[in-house]
C-alpha cells in the first residue's frame, strides 16, 4: 500500500492510502477499483452518476447524502437489490447492476 509523505509542518495526516487494485463489473463492464473504496466512490470516479431510476417516474437518481442515510444511491450487487453504494465496500469480482426501481421487480 502506497502511503503519501506527511507534510513538513507535521500538522496534516500522512495522506490517504490506496488499496490493492482489483476488478469489479458494472453492468457487465470491467472497471478497476481499489480495496477500501466504496462502490459509490468507484462509480463516481468513473463518471457514472446515475445509479438507479425511480419506480413511478423513471427519473435518474444518484447519491445524495453519501453517508448511508438517504437511500438514494441504491444499486444491485451480485443479485441483491437495494444496497447503498455509499456504504458498500468493493470486492474483487463483484457484479454491480444499475437498478430500475422497484429493485425486486427487475432483479435477474
Amino acid at each position: 500500500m502506497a502511503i503519501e509523505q506527511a507534510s513538513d509542518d507535521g500538522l496534516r495526516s500522512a495522506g490517504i492510502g490506496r488499496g490493492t487494485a482489483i476488478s469489479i463489473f458494472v453492468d457487465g463492464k470491467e472497471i478497476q477499483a481499489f480495496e477500501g473504496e466504496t462502490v459509490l466512490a468507484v462509480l463516481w470516479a468513473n463518471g457514472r452518476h446515475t445509479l438507479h431510476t425511480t419506480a413511478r417516474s423513471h427519473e435518474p437518481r444518484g447519491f445524495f447524502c453519501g453517508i448511508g442515510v438517504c437511500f438514494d444511491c441504491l444499486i444491485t450487487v451480485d443479485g441483491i437489490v437495494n444496497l447503498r453504494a455509499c456504504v458498500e465496500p468493493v470486492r474483487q469480482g463483484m457484479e454491480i447492476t444499475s437498478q430500475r426501481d422497484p429493485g425486486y421487480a427487475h432483479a435477474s
Partner: protein
Amino acid sequence: MRTADVCIVGGGLLGTATAYYAAKAGLKVVLVEERELASGTSGVAFGGVSLAIYSYSAARVPRAYVDLSKASLALYQQAQEELGAPLDFDAPGSIDPFYNDEDSERGLERARGLQDCGVPCEFIDYKQIREIEPAVSPIAINAIYCPIDAHVTPMGVVWAFAKAARQMGAEIRTGVRASSLISRGERVVGVITSEGEIFADTVVCASGSGVPALAASVGVKVPLDLARGQMFVTERIPPLLRTYVHNIKQTPAGTIVFGTTREPGVKDTTATSVEGTMKMLKWVTSLIPALSNVKLLRSWAGLRLLPIDGYPIIGKPDGIEGLMLAVMHRGVTLAPVVGSILTDLILQGKTRHDIGPYRLSRFSPKDQRGEARETFYGN
C-alpha cells in the same frame, strides 16, 4: 387583531379535520399551528382507520366508541371522493392477532362485543388467518379479522384537509404559537399567539400534547398521558400483505410500515432507540418471518397520547363557554367524525352522535391535572 367564528389551535388531524368541516359549513375559521402541519403525533402515526384494533382499550369496547369509529370510517370514504388521492385511503381489512389463550379469550369477547355493535368482524383461528394472510406465522393462534378496516397516510390526510379548508376560505397559519387562552368571566373569547391576539366565538384546542397546558390557562384540567412510540419503514418489496396486521402494513409503494413501541417516561420523545428498535424487529419478524431478510430503511418516533381512561375527550368542558376540546388516542380513526361533531356543536349546540361518555366532566376532580404526564394507564 384578528377575529373569527372559530379559532383552532393545532395543525394535525383533529385540527385540520375540524377546519375542513367548519369551513364547509360556512364558518370563518382561523387555524394556528406552532410548527408545521402534521409536525406532531399526526405526522408519525401508523394511519389505521380501524373498527377492530384497540391497543389500550378494554376487552369490551363501548358502543358509543364503536359508533364514532364507524361514522368516521364513512366520512373517510366520503372525504376520499371529495379530496382524492392524497389520503391514500384503502380498506383492505385488518387482522389483530392474539398470541396466548388469555389474549384470545379477551379477543373473542371483544369480537362478540363489536359484532353486537354491527361491526362485520370475525374471530378466527390460525388456519383462517393463513388463508387471508399467508405471511403470518403460527405464533398467532387467533385473530379478529375485520374486512372493512382501512388505513390512510396521516400526513396526506392532514394536507388534504388543510388544502380543502383553505380553498373554502379557512385561514391556516403555521409557525404561530398559541400561548394561552383569553377569557372574559366564564367564557373563552380568544387565543394569545406569538403573532398577536385572535378573538373567536369558539376556540378549539386540538394540539395534542399541548392541550393540557393551553386548557390550564383558563383553569380547565385535562388528564392526558404520553408515551414515546417508534415506527419503522422497510425497502420496497413484492406484494406480501393484503390486509394490515395490527400495526404492520404494506404501502402502495411496496414498503412495509410497522410499529409501534410504547415507552412511558421518555423525555426525548422524537429520538429512536436501539432497544426499542430491537424489540420491534424481534416481534415483527416472528410474526411475519418473510420480513427477516428485508432491509430496514428508516425509523422515527413521536408522542402517543392517551386520556387516562383510554377514551377521547370531545367537546365543551363544563362551566365554561366558547371552548371545545379534541384530544384522544386513535386520532387518525376519529378525526373526521370529531371534526364534524365539533362543527355541529358550534353551529347548533348539539350533535346526533353520542358523545356523552366522552365529556371531560367524566373525570373526577382528583384525576384532573394541569399538565400531560409521561406514563400510560391501561394495558
